[in-house]
């Protein structure tokens, strides 16, 4: 054999083996997606919506304005919502699909092992069953055809249009969209806002830390005087749902509240005593449901479950509301505005992601002209404005999830209920896992709802969202409302989630209402609160009229008129703080610290005292970055440092001076803001770490900043290190930390990096560019760098008049669209754009009715 032949053979072998190797390896599948010209991905990079399409419900048009907002116009409402489904399906289909997968427990089918636990939880909760029950109930209502039309529109977009790049990258196609999927997304947001297992967590903390420390660090009521319905506030209008039913019947609600609070100022000042003895209608003193008694109650239900359930709590904690979820909203009447019409402000603090959690749309039909934001997959505007009004929502923090323990038989296959053994309602469910072994999950339910187990521990769950709810109808009707009376009618069917609604109409009427079904519980005929674990076997504190995965009658829930509310307030603000000091009925305990609520009220009081306010004034409030924690803590730190200045480290003194000269604004270019932000975290750690670590807890269990900031100097948490020494020690830790960090100013640390696409880890190009940003977890202009939660949209509106808004990113979920991130920098800078009810932009799709 010649040398040439050998060389040729060698080259031929290299060529052949290389080609086969590429084709057979992972590189081959990557090349199928990303090879130039032939890669599947490129079809999705230059997408353009079809100019014409067929609409089975009639003609319609979609115009898109200069920031990508779709303006849908149709005579027929079904035709309009078909078009809404179509454009949402074009712009956000991947988001729809991912969220649907999450609730259905189908994420692992595309994401693999990493999401198996999430799928297991969602399957066991059977959110699908709840959505199906809801759809069954609403199928005959007037707006159900619109939900169907919306689903048809999404499916038409799936059929007609190029899929988003994420589908190409992941290599899967979406299943057809259904009305139940839309309801599932409503369940998802309701769960995000109200799904928490605080009773379980509190029991675990009490077991680990003791009742006294838990009382200090995790008070069920924060000590402050700025609830939503402020005692003594003359600007609240007619107040109801507070002060006790008897009192309400005898005099106007607003006066009752003022009288009650004057007689009993700061009734909940005692930390940990519950929502004041003003809530005496529960027939329960605050102390009676302290965590100690909780454990006692649960022990009667099951001896296996009395010593805390770390594995169960840790598992469930992954699927609760993300830390920091909350919102700001306020309303001022025309009394306090330059135009003489009210102003509504709202900025919900939800997960910040790429693309944004909200989708903005404008729908004009013969019935309505409504514009605002909705969750992709939901047809109707949720927060927004129409020609007659404007509205917004914040989370209440209400207690709408109860935990039960049961007596089980020896092999755990039956549970005791009211004296007899019952079989679980059981179903096997298979979870598909990409590149892994499929899992079979046993879904078990009791009379109360899902039965969740982990490592031998269990909990039965009742949650208002697991029954058929009417919120979709309510949201739809608010969008069509023609004034306050219509809205109040609509709110009666707003079953979940529990929300603070602020509304104002073009006639100058204003309103605040607590929405959502609030369970009433009784034991031996006495009302009790819900922040404990109940004995499920005894049928303790069950919700009358509640039917999990069925149709609730709601007879055992707080009547609409008795929920906290204020009609025609001149000035009212909500920021997830306590609704009222003395609600007629128990509402809940998961309230936010009053940092934002107090600051908003301070700003509004100041503004309205000066005279008429403008949208600019309210924009300044909504983007306020002054951190109330600084006013609460920095003077104490400076004083502590001054006391030891002589013998202290010069750097400590310099840092103290820096903070002393600071205006408390969490601005990106502020060095003091950086020191403060890190100092607060170090302060919480310095206070908590020794005891938490000893108790087997970690920083995910740490209390709120407010709880630590208000700890008295004689708290047992300062036994080993005084409060003064703790403040200074935290500053020393901060300076050491900053020595080793690359941060010079707050914006170096506080960046938008956490605002990621769900698959941004694998495909970083899908993430937004990273920028420095201001604000903190305690500022009105809210941003949590640790959990990517913050102002997920901002709305300022004169009902029927000028309005402004902004999104944290862009309205399109199409990576290659100009509107993928075109609002991001404006949002960071605290800027707005106009929100008008005029149809503007270029026509992007003309729908022809099938019959025409």
């Amino acid at each position, binding site marked *: 054999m010649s040398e040439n032949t050998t060389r040729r053979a060698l080259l031929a072998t290299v*060529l052949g083996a290389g080609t086969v190797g590429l084709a057979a390896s992972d590189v081959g599948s990557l090349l199928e997606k990303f*090879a130039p010209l032939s890669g599947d991905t*490129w079809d999705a*990079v*230059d997408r353009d919506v079809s100019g014409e399409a067929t609409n089975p419900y009639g003609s319609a048009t979609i115009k898109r304005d200069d920031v990508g907002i779709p303006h849908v116009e149709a005579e027929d409402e079904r035709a309009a919502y078909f078009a809404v489904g179509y454009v949402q399906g074009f712009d956000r289909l991947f988001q729809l699909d991912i969220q649907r997968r999450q609730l259905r427990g189908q994420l692992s089918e595309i994401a693999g092992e990493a999401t198996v636990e999430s799928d297991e939880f969602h399957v066991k909760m059977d959110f699908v069953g709840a959505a199906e029950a809801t759809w069954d109930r609403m199928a005959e209502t007037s707006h159900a055809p619109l939900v169907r039309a919306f689903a048809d529109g999404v499916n038409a977009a799936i059929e007609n249009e190029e899929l988003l790049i994420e589908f190409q990258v992941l290599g899967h196609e979406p299943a057809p969209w259904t009305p139940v999927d839309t309801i599932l997304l409503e369940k998802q947001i309701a769960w995000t806002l109200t799904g928490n297992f605080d009773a379980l967590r509190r029991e675990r903390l009490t077991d680990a830390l003791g009742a006294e420390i838990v009382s200090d660090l995790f008070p069920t009521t924060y000590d402050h005087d700025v609830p939503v319905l402020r005692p003594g506030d003359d600007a609240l209008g007619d107040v109801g749902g507070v002060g006790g039913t008897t009192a309400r019947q005898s005099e106007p609600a607003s006066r009752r509240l003022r009288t009650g609070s004057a007689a009993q100022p700061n009734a909940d000042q005692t930390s940990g005593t519950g929502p004041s003895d003003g809530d005496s209608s529960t027939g329960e003193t605050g102390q009676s449901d302290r965590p100690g008694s909780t454990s006692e109650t649960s022990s009667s239900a099951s001896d296996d479950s009395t010593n805390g359930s770390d594995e169960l709590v840790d598992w469930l904690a992954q699927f609760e509301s993300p830390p920091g979820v909350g919102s700001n909203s306020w309303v001022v009447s025309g009394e306090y505005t330059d135009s003489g019409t009210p102003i509504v402000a709202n900025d919900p603090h939800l997960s910040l992601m790429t693309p944004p959690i909200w989708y903005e749309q404008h729908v004009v039909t013969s019935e309505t002209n409504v514009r605002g934001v909705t969750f992709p997959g939901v047809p109707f505007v949720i927060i927004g404005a129409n020609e007659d009004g404007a509205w917004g929502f914040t989370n209440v923090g209400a207690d709408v999830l109860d935990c039960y323990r049961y007596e089980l038989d020896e092999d755990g296959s039956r549970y005791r209920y009211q004296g007899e053994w019952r079989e679980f309602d059981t179903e096997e469910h298979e979870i598909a896992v990409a590149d892994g072994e499929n899992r079979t999950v046993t879904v078990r339910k009791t009379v109360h709802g899902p039965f969740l187990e982990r490592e031998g521990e269990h909990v039965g769950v009742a949650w208002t969202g697991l029954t058929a709810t009417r919120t979709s109808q309510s949201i739809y009707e608010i969008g069509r409302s023609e004034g306050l009376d219509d809205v109040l009618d609509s709110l009666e069917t707003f079953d979940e989630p529990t929300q603070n609604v602020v509304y104002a109409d073009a006639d100058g009427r204003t309103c605040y209402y607590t929405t959502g079904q609030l369970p009433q519980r009784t034991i031996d005929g006495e009302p009790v609160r819900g922040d404990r674990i109940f004995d499920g076997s005894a049928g303790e504190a069950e919700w009358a009229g509640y039917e999990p995965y069925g149709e609730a009658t709601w007879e055992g829930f707080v009547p609409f008129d008795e929920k906290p509310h204020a009609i025609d307030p001149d000035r009212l603000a909500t920021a997830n703080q306590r609704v009222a000091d003395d609600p007629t009925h128990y509402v809940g305990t998961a309230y936010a610290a009053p940092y934002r609520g107090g600051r908003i009220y301070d700003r509004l009081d100041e503004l309205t005292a000066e005279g008429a306010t403008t949208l600019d004034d309210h924009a300044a409030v909504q983007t306020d970055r002054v951190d109330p924690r600084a006013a609460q803590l920095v003077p104490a730190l400076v004083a502590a440092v001054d006391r030891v200045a002589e013998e202290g480290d010069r750097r400590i003194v310099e840092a103290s001076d820096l903070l002393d000269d600071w205006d408390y604004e969490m601005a990106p270019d502020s060095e003091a803001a950086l020191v403060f932000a890190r100092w607060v975290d170090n302060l919480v750690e310095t206070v908590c770490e020794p005891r938490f670590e000893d108790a087997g807890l970690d920083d995910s269990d740490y209390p709120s900043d407010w709880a630590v900031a208000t700890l008295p100097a004689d708290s047992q948490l300062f036994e080993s290190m005084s409060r003064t020494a703790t403040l200074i020690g935290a500053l020393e830790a901060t300076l050491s930390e900053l020595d080793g960090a690359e941060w010079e100013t707050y914006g170096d640390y506080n960046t938008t990096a956490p605002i990621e696409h769900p698959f941004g880890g694998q495909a970083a190009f899908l993430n937004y560019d990273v920028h420095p940003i201001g604000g903190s977890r305690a500022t009105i202009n809210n941003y949590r760098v640790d959990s990517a939660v913050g102002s997920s949209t901002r709305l300022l509106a004169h009902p029927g008049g000028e309005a402004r808004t902004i999104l944290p990113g862009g309205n399109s979920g199409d990576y290659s669209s100009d509107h993928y991130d075109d609002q991001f920098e404006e949002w960071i800078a605290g800027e707005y754009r106009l929100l008008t009810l005029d149809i503007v932009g270029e026509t992007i799709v003309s729908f022809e009715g099938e019959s025409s």
Partner: protein
Amino acid sequence: MTSEELGPTNSSENDGDRRPDDEFESRAGGESPADRRDAVDQVRGAVSRIRTQPGPHRVAVVVAVVVGLGLAWFHWLGLLLGGMLVGFVARTLRRALLAGLGFGVVLLAVFAVTVAGSLGQTLAMTPPIYLTIGAALGLPTFGALVRGVV
């Protein structure tokens, strides 16, 4: 061994190893060995012309590029085949490799035109875009190694 050394040995005129042709002849049947040898020589002559004569060479390169782009439009293996085609008509292996690389550059230019509306976003698609560019330049060059075989 360099590619320059390999190049001349691959030209048909100097190639004494005829075993593939012999195999072809053995299968051909009816014609005489001399006729068959003439036919093979004609093919070799044609290949030689398109590799060495400027006019036919240009035409061959253009055809190879167009066909290669067409194949690459449908499947990534077209990148390899395109490289093989432009490599095959090159005079030497070294020129084949350069031609493969050149084909990749042309292909990238065509690709840029096809995504012109979103070129910025496409180029920002890191890291996948590195694979795209690497495949565009690497696979045709790799395919052009075929010139070392025929």
